[in-house]
């Protein structure tokens, strides 16, 4: 009887450990060391859980109608689809398309132009932007402190009810850092758990020849700011990285986005101008709009035949991580849903 109980406990512990492991897949040897420490999950009520509540709660916005998830939908790898330019409070339209959120622990800077240098500071940008959440950290803290739900949530996490900006921003950062995506077919191939099809193999070869310099595997970004020769949209005239550095050579440069989960993160480019991958490849096959010939990040067009494009796209689709996108640990938290229903 005693042995049976012990066995049940051991099985239980194993299942819990397995479930926790599932929640944030462990990166393996082919993945570089992240800049940020990945969150660990020792308890049910950790900072990640608190950050998840905050991430999905409209309480962050001035009118209680916009959350982080409004522009970063889990089912779109936390990107914003359907709109070229993301929109926020009072249907205000911004100037860029919200990027997908995953593998942020491997990013040094955040936003399309790297305006935010640290993940804990990132949430302040949309929170204060009059076109995104139109609020501020002081107002948010007042609302959180007045909320029984959040007083309890902070107590569950920190064992006291102190609600301050440090804890709030760290919790949001913890949830964002937990968004790890390395369970695509590409990853399975890398770990000898799958094989590419003939077409995917051909596409992978083309990728390494033409795309890997900027969309460097295994993160599929080199983390740099580059000008990929997009025609300047005069209605926005978004100068990208230049707005942060004020260096002439940074004009019209944007952070190279990861190609992981790209089926879920359309539309593409910083201003969402392309809806399909074919449009993207069409852009790269054109050698128009090279702004600084001789010094351009992309000097030559990438000419691909119709079949080669199909091969390349076939490979790119192996970068989709369905487990990440549909991971219940990342979706709208039941605890928040139950609270909002009761309220």
């Amino acid at each position, binding site marked *: 009887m005693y042995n049976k109980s012990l066995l049940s406990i051991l099985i239980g512990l194993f299942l819990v450990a397995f479930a926790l492991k599932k929640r944030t897949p462990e990166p393996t040897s082919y993945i570089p060391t992240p800049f940020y420490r990945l969150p660990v999950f020792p308890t049910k009520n950790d900072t990640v859980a608190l950050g998840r509540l905050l991430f999905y709660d409209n309480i962050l916005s001035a009118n209680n109608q916009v959350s982080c998830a409004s522009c970063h939908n889990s089912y779109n790898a936390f990107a914003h689809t359907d709109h070229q330019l993301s929109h926020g409070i009072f249907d205000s339209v911004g100037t860029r398309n919200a990027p997908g959120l995953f593998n942020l622990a491997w990013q040094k800077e955040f936003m399309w132009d790297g305006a935010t*240098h640290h993940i804990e*500071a990132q949430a*302040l940008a949309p929170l*204060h*932007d009059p076109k995104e959440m139109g609020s501020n950290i002081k107002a948010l803290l007042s609302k959180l402190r007045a909320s029984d739900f959040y007083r309890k949530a902070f107590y569950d996490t920190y064992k006291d009810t102190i609600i*301050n900006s440090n804890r709030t921003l760290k919790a949001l950062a913890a949830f964002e850092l937990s968004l790890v995506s390395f369970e695509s077919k590409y990853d399975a191939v890398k770990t000898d758990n799958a094989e590419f099809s003939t077409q995917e193999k051909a596409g992978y070869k083309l990728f390494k020849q033409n795309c890997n310099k900027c969309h460097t595997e295994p993160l599929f970004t080199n983390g740099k700011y580059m000008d990929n020769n997009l025609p300047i949209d005069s209605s926005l005239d978004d100068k990208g990285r230049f707005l942060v550095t004020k260096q002439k050579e940074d004009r019209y440069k944007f952070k190279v986005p990861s190609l992981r989960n790209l089926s879920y993160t359309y539309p593409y480019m910083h201003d969402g101008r392309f809806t399909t991958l074919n449009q993207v490849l069409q852009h790269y096959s054109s050698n128009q709009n090279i702004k600084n010939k001789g010094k351009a990040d992309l000097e030559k067009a990438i000419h691909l035949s119709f079949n080669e494009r199909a091969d390349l796209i076939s490979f790119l689709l192996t970068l989709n991580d369905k487990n990440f996108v549909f991971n219940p640990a990342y979706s709208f938290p039941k605890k928040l849903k139950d609270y909002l229903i009761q309220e």
Partner: protein
Amino acid sequence: MQHLIFFLLVFMNIGFTSAQLKFSLAHDSLLYIPIRINQEDSVSLLRFYISNIHIEQGRKIIWEAHKKHYLIDFTQNRLATNIVSGTGLENIKKGRLKFTLGVDHKTASQGIGEGPLDPIQGMYWTWQSGYINFKLEGVSSKCPSRKNRFQLHLGGFQKPFRSAQIIELQITGTRANVVFNIHKFLAEINLREAHSIMSPGEKAVSLMEHAKRCFYVQ
């Protein structure tokens, strides 16, 4: 009164069990905001960070403030005395007082801070991360801006626009007053052109260098 003077008082009276550095404002019109500086200029907000405050003798650090960062605020919090605390001041006869005007770039490159570095203090840029080291707002008839307002939000911690300044001031005797001369600060800048600075850049660095030159020992 032509000068707005900020005193950094080094109390070394033996009667004090815990000696303190105090940032206080010696200006009667402090009770009234905006603070009238002269016929043309008035100040409605003045806040800045002071970090890594210590006293050196030779190459040796002989005294350090208890906290690494202090937010000095003479307008919103105008009646309060900004206390910089540390122990052992009473034994110091002379030395070099050193501090950083602003938040040093190493601290700024980290995540969100607490206390004076908490973003709720209104000294953190949200559209572009980093601390505002020095914030001065007011009105000047020289400004061609709307309602003649000037807003100088000076910050930036990344190269090539690191703006925090290290200030060194010699102190001797039992008491030293460190003064920030805002009259000099406003008189020697071109408010016709530099009236709205709200991002890191050459102008912010240049004004921070100018602010550094406006501290002196009285």
